[in-house]
Each structure stands twice: as C-alpha cells, then as structure tokens.
C-alpha cells in the first residue's frame, strides 16, 4: 500500500498538556454500570488505544467523548475547555465505526464531500474539492472517486469512511474498532497506514479495540479497560513487560502469558507439582501467581541466547502436546510444572508432539502477582 512517508513525531511524551482529559467519568446504561470513575488523558499528538473485551465499556467511553452520551458524573475537557455539556457538533471530533456507515447509493466523492457541505461550515466549492482530492490521495482512493459506495470492497469502504473523517480536519479522531470487519491481510496493511496517516496529520486519536495486536502495534499508549474501569495505562512495552495484574497480563500477548500458581520453598518459587521455577527473594507473601511470557521460556537444547537468569529450573521434563509452525516462529503447548504451558521460539524448531524437553524460565522476565490481585487465571 502506498502509505505516505511519515515524519517523525514532534512531541515528546509528557511534554505537552493533554488535549483530551476525562476526570471521574461514570455512566450507567440501564442496569449496567458501563463506566466507573474513568480518569484518562490523550496527549496532543498521540494515538491512544483503549483495549478491552466486549462489554468493557469501550464504545460507551468513545460515545461519551463524542458527546453522543452524557456522563452521569465527571467532566470532559478538550484543549483546556470543559466540553461536558457541549453537543457533538460543537466538539469538532470525527467518529469512525466498525461497519463503514457510508451512503451506499452515493459516489465516493459525494460521501467524502458530505461532512464538508454542512450549512454551518459554509465552505467554498473550491475548498471542498481541494480537501476531497487531498484525502483521496492520502488514502489512495483517488481512482474510486466516481464509484458508487455499494460497489466497493470492505477495505475500500473503510478507507472512504476514514477519508470522510479526515476531510473535516477535526480536532480529535475517535475510532471504534474500524478494522474489525476486514480480512486479516487488509487489517495488517491498514494498521500501519492509519498510524502513519495520523502522524502526518498530527491530530490526536482515540482508537478502541479488543485486538491486542492492534493495541500493541498501533498505540503510543494503551488504556486497558475492564468492566468500565481503567486497570492500567502505559506505553505498549511497559504494559506488556510489567502488567500490574493478571487480567492486564492476559489482555496482551498471543499466545497469552502463562500464569502458574507458585509457593516459596527453599528460596525458589515452586509450581504446584513441586517443580522449582525461579529463585525467590524472601520478601512478601509465600503464595503467588507467576506470569511468564511464552517467549521467555527456553526449551532445553533450544536458543542458548536466553540463558541468563535461568537458574533453578530446566530440570523438570515437559511433554510437547501441540506444535505450531507459523512462519518463522514455533509455538509449543506442553504439559509442564502441573500446568499446560505455551512456549514460543523465534525460529523454526524441530519438535513433534510427544517430544520430551526441559524448559527453563528466564527469571529476569518473570512477573509475580499477589494471589488476591484483581482477576482470575487462564
């Protein structure tokens, strides 16, 4: 895809005041508490991803920012001004939905012009055409301008929907799972295009998704939402490597992080079947949940590169149950340490179901959770 060459982002995280600021936003929908005391900031030039499963409150959050829902309590500020009571049009935000929402019988051009023809805008015809052509070029849909929207493919429709959002040059983009209904291949391409497009426009974006790959790969920062509450906010690497709770840990990573109940015995964290996993320091409670990403377990005889910190394990045998070779990576599902554990190797190994291996955990990468920390296990 001909994504435009990107310019480096000008902002340094934290340097500018937030463009969008939510404080204590709560919203009840019928009998459901959709949002509970949400505090959230989006910086002036960042792509903020709100990640959560179905029912987490993501769409309600987006609709509240857009002004389509009124919060029961709390405030919303944009560019320093309180917009909580403003109607949607006055907020000057553009919303893109999952299901393309174009006028099917209209041409692409007419669909793109529509938001610019609002009487309140009073734009001259030449300016309308200039902006439509600009957006069409950015999104590589110029050759489709005269085609009827109903005759477009899914990917083309979503490009037009995005085009309709950017012609207005709003102050803020709000995206509600815009890639969810597209083929895997198209999602992959549009993911990058959207990131580069937004960076070029330097307009902040709040992007809602349940897809952890989109969250990790697109976000400047991620907000993890669950049950209407924010569980953690941070840069993708921060949340992936240092999740604050098992629920957050499980939200990011594919296959999911391995979570093993452990007890401290003789200076080690020991699995339920007695397998010592990693060295333990003496502080804190004796029972924990140990989180280890599949790529931070090394099957013995595998990559020697990750040997450091792998003390106290590599002794207990594991049985390989399932082997998946996906492109360059190998994923193993093993019975080990009284659990079923995923191991990912960044190359094509030679494993078969039934093989016996001796996994080692890279102790420096393990995360320990208090057993009472929020949420369940896998």
């Amino acid at each position, binding site marked *: 895809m001909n*994504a435009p*060459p*990107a*310019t*480096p*982002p000008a902002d340094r995280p934290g340097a500018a005041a937030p463009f969008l600021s939510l404080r204590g936003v709560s919203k009840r929908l019928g009998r459901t508490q959709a949002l509970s005391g949400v505090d959230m900031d989006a910086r002036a030039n960042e792509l903020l991803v709100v990640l959560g*499963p*179905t029912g987490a409150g993501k769409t309600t959050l987006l609709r509240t920012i857009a002004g389509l829902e009124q919060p029961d309590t709390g405030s919303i500020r944009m560019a320093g001004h309180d917009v909580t009571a403003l109607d949607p049009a006055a907020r000057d935000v553009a919303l893109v939905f999952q299901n393309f929402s174009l006028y099917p019988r209209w041409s692409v051009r007419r669909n793109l012009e529509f938001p610019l023809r609002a009487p309140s805008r009073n734009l001259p015809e030449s300016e309308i055409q200039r902006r439509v052509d600009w957006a069409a070029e950015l999104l590589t849909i110029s050759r489709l301008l005269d085609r009827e929207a109903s005759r477009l493919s*899914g990917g083309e429709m979503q490009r037009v929907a995005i085009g309709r959002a950017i012609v207005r040059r709003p102050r803020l983009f709000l995206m509600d799972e815009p890639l969810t209904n597209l*083929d*895997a*291949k198209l999602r*992959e391409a549009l*993911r*990058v295009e959207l*990131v*580069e497009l937004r*960076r070029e426009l330097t307009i902040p974006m709040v992007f809602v998704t*349940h*897809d*952890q*790959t989109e969250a*990790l*790969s*697109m976000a400047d920062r991620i907000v993890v939402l669950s049950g209407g509450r924010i569980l953690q906010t941070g840069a*993708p*690497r921060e949340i*992936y490597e240092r999740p604050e709770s098992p629920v957050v840990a*499980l939200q*990011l*990573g*594919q*296959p*999911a992080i391995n979570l093993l109940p452990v007890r401290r015995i003789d200076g080690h964290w020991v699995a339920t079947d007695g397998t010592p996993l990693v060295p333990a320091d003496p502080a804190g409670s004796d029972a924990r949940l140990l989180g280890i*990403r*599949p*790529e931070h377990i090394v099957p013995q005889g595998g990559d020697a590169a990750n040997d450091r910190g792998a003390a106290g394990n590599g002794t207990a045998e594991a049985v390989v*149950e*399932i082997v*998946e*070779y*996906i*492109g*360059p*990576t190998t*994923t193993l*599902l093993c019975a080990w340490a009284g659990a079923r554990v995923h191991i*990912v190797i*960044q190359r*094509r190994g030679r494993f078969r*179901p039934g093989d016996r291996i001796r996994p080692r955990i890279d102790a420096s990468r393990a995360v320990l959770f208090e057993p009472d920390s929020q949420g369940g296990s896998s």
Partner: protein
Amino acid sequence: MSFLVLEGLRKTYGDQTHAVRGIDLAIERGELIVLLGPSGCGKTTTLRMIAGLELATGGSIRMNGADVTSLRPSRRDVGMVFQFYALYPHLTVRENIAFPLRAAGVREAETRARVEAVAARMNLGTLLGRYPRQLSGGDQQKVSLARAIVRRPAVYLMDEPLGTLDADQRLAMRELIRADQLASKVTTIYVTHDQEEAMSLADRIVVMDGGRIRQVGTPAEVYDHPADLFVATFVGSPGMNLIPGQIGNGDSNGDGHGDGHDGTGRRFLSRQGYALDVAPGLRPGQATLGIRCEHIQEDPRGPLVGRVLTDEYLGNASNVHLETDLGRLVMRANGASRHAPGSRVRVRLDPEQISLFDSGTERRL
C-alpha cells in the same frame, strides 16, 4: 488412488461469474487440508461443491473411488461445520453433544455410545451431566467442538468455523481442532482467509485466488518457497518484501553496476543498482526479488541504509518498516529492541533466503 479427488472442478453462475475456474486436487485419507485465500477466491464455493450444497458446472469429485459429483448432500458421507455456535444453556453437556445425532434420527443406544466416545477423547467424560454455565470457558469450547464433530463422517468440511470467536478463543479452538484431528484422523478440509490459522492447522495448504489454485504445499513449503507473487505476499504476516529488478550476468568486480561477461554467475540487480549474486542457472530477464522480514538483518556494515517509518511492536517481536533505496521494506526485530521513527539503520539481505520471480508471469524462478 487418493481418497478425495477433484478434477477440473468448475463453478460458473448464471450471470457468467466464474467462481471456480478448474481445480485439480488430490487429498489423502486422514489429511487436514486448508483452502486459503482472500474473499472471492473460490475457496468456499469449492468446499460447498464437495459438500454437495452447490453443483459443479464442470469437472468431477471422486470420493473413495466413487463419483459423487452430482449426489445430493445427504448421500455423501460429509459433515459440514459452519461455526462453533454457542451451546444450548438449558441442555446438559450430554444433550448438547447428542443434539446433532438426535436431529439426524440416530438410534438412542448409538447416540449414547458416540457421545461418550467423543467425550472421552476430549476429556469431557466427567462433565456430561453439567450445564454449560457450570463449565469453564475452555471446557465450553471443547463441548462445542465435540458437538460439531460427534457425527463421524468420512470427511469434515469446515467453513471459517472460528470466524466469530475472539483471538484467545480462536487460538484455543485451533489447538483443540488440531489435537482432535491428529487423534481421530478424519480427513478434514478447512476454509479460511487467515494465513496464520492455515499455517498452524494444515498438513497441506491450498492457496487460491481468482477461482484457481496458486499453490499446494506444506505450510513450510508455501512460506519458504512461494510459487508466485500472490502467494509470496498473501502468506506471512507481513507478506514478503518485493524488490523489482532484473537478472543479468555475474559481475566479478562486485560494484553492482557492471555487467561483466565471465559467463559463470548470475546476478540480480535492482532498479536502484543494488546487486546480489544468485543461482547460476537462472535465465536473464526482468525479475522480482522476494525476501521475508526475518531475513533482513540489522548489520552495521550492511550495504543498505533504511530510515525507520514505523516500528510495529508485537510483544515478542517488532515489524520495523523502513524506507530504503529499494523501496519500503519490513524488517523483523527482536521485541526488546526499539526503533524510533526517523532514525537510521544499516541492514543486509540474507542471500541464502531470497526468492526470485519472473516479473512477467509472476511465477517463481
């Protein structure tokens, strides 16, 4: 003779839409075959013709030696699995799994035996009396798979069965399907547009586009040695990087610009003048070089400079998009590394890992 043989299979609709344009495929007993391609490639139509839900307008389908091309669906021994639907909440696990058998009028004793057999194989034996709400999410998925496969036809036909599940569930179901298929050895044909799903499940992948087969091969063959440019870009996440250029005679002075006539080697020369020695037997001409992102490596002495456009962090790895003299390239980096947009890196292409395609026919050289 193979268990299931498609020969010259075609489907043309009344409005002259050519959904399937002549497919030849031989499937062995016990294989898990994945039909992979974008929407509109003909994969679902092919599956429906095997099921008998669509009638072929040309060619033949032979199953176990018998011509079934024009048999009704019920006369073919196939089981179609569309999606793993939610379980019936008011029925027990046993009743849920038995449902398709009862609907088909299978006798009670046999129903009981088959339900217990599939439950035992999937470690659900102790849960048969429970209701879905009393099960963990993982066990619910097992029950839905058990229900889908409790009929034991000669062939399972699965049409994007994981389409509506979220990513975690998809992964778990994928593993269940694979484990069960390995245990039961029932021939399975599985349709998807998701190349990752295809790679993880298939014994062999059939890549389709425009109603035709582009390539048939094991996941590794299709990934490492794509038969044409379509397969090279469709398979893999991301698809292969493609660099247009031409194959000429080898050049011993190695500056990449000459075209010496020592008559031995062959050299690929990109339009921008980047040169790489290639296999000597290749015929000179317009060619496209393909290379996977994991075979572009950071190397301080590498010949190519890339400006970072975007660093797509994926947790256990990163896809780093680079602007280079050869155009836009994606490089796979370790998840721990960071590449800020605008920064520069030197890279090399691993010459052992390149594919070459004829730029005209788009076929692999």
